[in-house]
């Protein structure tokens, strides 16, 4: 087996410092500097993973996953995160994918460009602003008597907030995925005489399915770690899920409250919860990469 070779950076470097020598040494120095930049980025990543593993494993035992946060475990937090993310996905996937279909299949005009631009901008709204928006919306609705004021801090509010963050993201990834379906596939379908909407639903969507799944997974990864919007919507609770109109705990919220706690036991539990959350995020991230890679061997759907 041939091992990949790292080029010898010292090759061809002269031991002189005239004009030519300086140019080559500068070239060498800049290459090293660029490499050092990569190392600088890897240090925090490595440190976070190692610290979470070392400190987190001390907190993790069988009871850690079963007990509620009120008793030092994270059982209700995992439950709450799964509920929030599942409901948010149930709202945002259909809406996001329909928007993605519009952008990729009907949006090759100025109007489509405008929508694409705004959806792009929406993916960058700070998540805490979305939290305030949902809080204010429910508060305004409850003042006018349309909904109960209890919903201000509830699983429903958390779901709406996460879905709002997820929708533009899913829409753009869905568009990218559907655009990759080749024109000849579409033409083949149309040549069989089926109408355009059935071509999209029965041919384009299944062909782009792995891209859609990747987008959905990345969307889940994006909202699964959100804390800020949940502070003012789902709020948090020491116990398990008790209804959609009640506050609900989530893993990121547990990490936040345990991190700021004065008790070292809870600080350690924060590391344990972080380890669980980071592993979930990394698994989703790596899995979605593999999914893309198997379809597009050169690893870039965007190219």
């Amino acid at each position, binding site marked *: 087996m041939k091992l990949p070779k790292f080029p010898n950076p010292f090759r061809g470097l002269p031991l002189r410092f005239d004009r030519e020598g300086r140019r080559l040494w500068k*070239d060498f120095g800049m*290459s090293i500097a660029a490499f050092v930049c990569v190392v600088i980025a890897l240090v925090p990543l490595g440190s976070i993973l190692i610290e979470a593993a070392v400190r987190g494993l001390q907190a993790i035992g069988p009871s850690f996953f079963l007990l509620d946060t009120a008793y030092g475990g994270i059982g209700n937090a995992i439950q709450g995160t799964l509920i929030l993310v599942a409901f948010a996905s149930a709202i945002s996937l259909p809406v996001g994918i329909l928007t993605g279909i519009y952008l990729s299949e009907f949006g090759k005009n100025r109007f489509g460009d405008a*929508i694409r631009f705004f959806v792009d901008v929406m993916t960058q709204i700070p998540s805490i602003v979305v939290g305030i928006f949902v809080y204010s919306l429910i508060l305004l609705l409850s003042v006018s008597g349309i909904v109960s004021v209890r919903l201000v801090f509830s699983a429903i509010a958390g779901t709406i907030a996460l879905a709002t963050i997820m929708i533009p993201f899913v829409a753009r990834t869905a568009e990218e995925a559907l655009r990759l379906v080749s024109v000849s596939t579409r033409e083949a379908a149309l040549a069989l005489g089926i109408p355009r909407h059935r071509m999209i639903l029965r041919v384009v969507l299944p062909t782009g399915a792995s891209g859609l799944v990747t987008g959905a997974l990345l969307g889940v990864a994006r909202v699964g770690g959100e804390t800020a919007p949940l502070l003012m919507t789902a709020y948090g609770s020491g116990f398990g899920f008790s209804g959609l109109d009640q506050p609900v705990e989530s893993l990121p919220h547990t990490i936040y409250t345990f991190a700021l706690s004065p008790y070292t036991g809870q600080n350690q539990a924060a590391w344990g919860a972080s380890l669980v959350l980071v592993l979930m995020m990394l698994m989703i991230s790596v899995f979605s990469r593999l999914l893309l890679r198997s379809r597009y061997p050169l690893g870039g759907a965007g190219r």
Partner: protein
Amino acid sequence: MLPVRFLRSLSGRLRAAPLGDTLFQGLCALVAIGVVALLGVITLVLALAAAPAMRAFGFGFLGGTVWNPIAPEEYGAAPFIDGTLVTSALALLLGVPVSIGIAIFLSELAPSWLRIPLTYIVELLAAVPSVVYGLWGLFVLAPVMRDSIEPAIRGALGWLPIFQGTPIGTDKFAAGVILAIMIIPTVSAVSREALLAVPGNQREAALSLGATRWETTRLAVLRYARAGIFGAIVLGLGRAVGETMAVTMMIGNKNSISVSLFDQGQTIASLIANSFAEAGPSSLQLAALIELGLVLMLISLAINVFARLMVGRVLRLGEGAA
């Protein structure tokens, strides 16, 4: 059996008529317009909820330096706008050179077998949730900041007004450092896209004139991609401005303006995260916080619209030239 037959005949009829196409396109368009309209709804709802504070303080809100929830209530945004700008500027100052270095290494220098894995690994920085950065910052980075990095900076540059005071590890400087780490994946990924969009013949032309690798990168690649890199930096700024949890946990949370980076501060986002639960519904403080949220959203929208225009322009340029 009846519903199946009914559905089949219905789908047969849809196939015959273009009605199905029209309906489907209409549905998609409606949903897409609805999504974009959400942006307007968000702005409107925030403006409505912030109205009491707007009426009470007018434009003076933006310049006010006092945040006092105890009667007589007074709310001003200046310390938080200042905190947001200072930490974001620090994040760019520290994060952008590293990100561009990464982009250059990944697109120009790295051996091809290393490129894809390294690109993935750098992108993993974006997969770490903000609150985990905060936890790491609080328990790992802050002690290092307090005991070695900040005293060292103060020893070397302590005569500067921005490095006065006793370093405590959770301050504006530390918040800027953690933000710098968090914007690296964004800035380096978009810069890398911009560098990859530079056509190969740009590089070949420079190399054929006898330029070294670095001279080629500087003269033929970076210059060509500068608009895209600029867009990447602005996108990083957008990320830094809206970042909440890690900053909230690292900045020390003090509601006043100070010159020194070793002093605690507060950003718009961290103030909202800290005080939202305390502010009672229909209080003036809540309206003021929501108005701050509106300001934050408008700032970040402006930044992102600008960045999109820059990035969009350069990627089109790249496609055209290739």
